[in-house]
């Protein structure tokens, strides 16, 4: 431990000595050279001249060549990005329009279908009602016909019953009395009896 400390102290001392030595040597050299070269006025005119020449050359090169070139590339890139964005926006609008028209067509088709369905239903109901009406009318006609024919039959039956009754009465009188009754008397008697019924 002591040894390490001792050697590091030695190294530090050597460093310090050499630093001071170097600096003093340089300081002496600088003094010998007559100070800073920056203060040597004899070089000023040449430096100013070549600064003006080179700076002007660089300015013209940048102004006429480099700057427009970079500017063009950046500008055209921005234009392309802008155009692409515009196109994307346009496509988005077109898609929205297409979606809206599809939606519209769908709703139209749906309402049309409903219309057709409703019409069909109405037609069916109307047809049904018409048929029922016709049927009712037919039935009524048939009923009256039937009623008429029944009445006729009844009348016929009633007429034939009188005849039968006269004949039965005449036959009965003949059998019972052994003598034929006059037809007019029988008819008179039957009619009188029938009135009583």
């Amino acid at each position, binding site marked *: 431990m002591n040894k390490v400390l001792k050697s590091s102290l030695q190294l530090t001392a*050597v460093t310090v000595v050499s630093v001071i030595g170097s600096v003093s040597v340089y300081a002496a050299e600088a003094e010998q050279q007559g100070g800073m070269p920056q203060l040597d006025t004899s070089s000023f005119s040449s*430096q100013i001249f070549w600064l003006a020449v*080179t700076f002007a050359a*660089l300015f013209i*090169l*940048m102004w006429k060549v*480099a700057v427009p*070139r970079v500017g063009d590339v*950046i500008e055209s890139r921005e234009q392309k990005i802008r155009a692409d964005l515009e196109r994307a926006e346009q496509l988005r609008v077109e898609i929205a329009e297409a979606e809206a028209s599809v939606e519209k067509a769908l709703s139209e088709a749906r309402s049309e279908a409903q219309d057709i369905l409703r019409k069909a239903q109405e037609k069916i109901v109307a047809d049904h009602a018409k048929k029922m009406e016709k049927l009712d009318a037919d039935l009524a006609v048939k009923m009256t016909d039937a009623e008429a024919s029944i009445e006729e039959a009844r009348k016929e039956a009633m007429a034939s019953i009188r005849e039968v009754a006269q004949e039965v009465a005449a036959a009965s009188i003949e059998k019972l009395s052994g003598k034929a009754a006059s037809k007019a008397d029988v008819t008179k008697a039957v009619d009188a009896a029938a009135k009583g019924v």
Partner: protein
Amino acid sequence: MAGPLEQFIIKPIVEGPVDSVAYTNSALWMSVTVVVVTAFMVLGMSRRAMVPGRWQSMSESMYEFVGGLIKENVGDEGRKYFPFIFTLFMFTLFGNMLGLVPGSFTFTSHIIVTLVMATFVFVLVTIVGLLKHGLHFFSFFVPSGAPVWLYPLMIPIEIISYLSRPVSMGVRLFANMMAGHTMLKVFAGFVFGIGTLTFGVGSILPIALMVALTGFEVLVAFLQAYVFTVLTCLYLNDSLHLH
């Protein structure tokens, strides 16, 4: 061995027609910056891809970074000044960054360069303000909301603070770059200084520090270019909108 300030010495590479415009190491690295920035931007955008690759993304993010700075600090009126502010940012950023390449020269570590750049921005921004607002521009120096009896005190203060803008802007960039590079060089010196005394063992510490400092300097290089650009934007905003 080279001193820590030796890296800042201006050395002529090609003699100009007149000595005052000699092509130096500073001029060389300014030229390198122009070439590298132009290549970075132009070659990066050469494919003009709709979906950018890595390089194109970097070029575009530089553009958009500066565009964002202007939009945030100046508003839409600042768009006109985009090429200038973009050039300013790229020139300082790449100047600072290329200066970190070992053996290169950092022209932004010279006060004359940063001061001229800051003064140019200052003059430009003042002209913009005068053109836009005419003589009304000078109302900028009249503090709003202060009592009138304070005007004799406040107006000179406002004018001085306005005039000191290029100085603070130029000195900030120069001082940061110079301090960072000097520090790196001093620690590089320690690597040898301590190394020779401790048979190389002691060099580990300054080398580790240099690695950390280099990373730190990359941050500073970016940050100072950013600060320089943001200040330009803020001053431009003051000129365009007064208070």
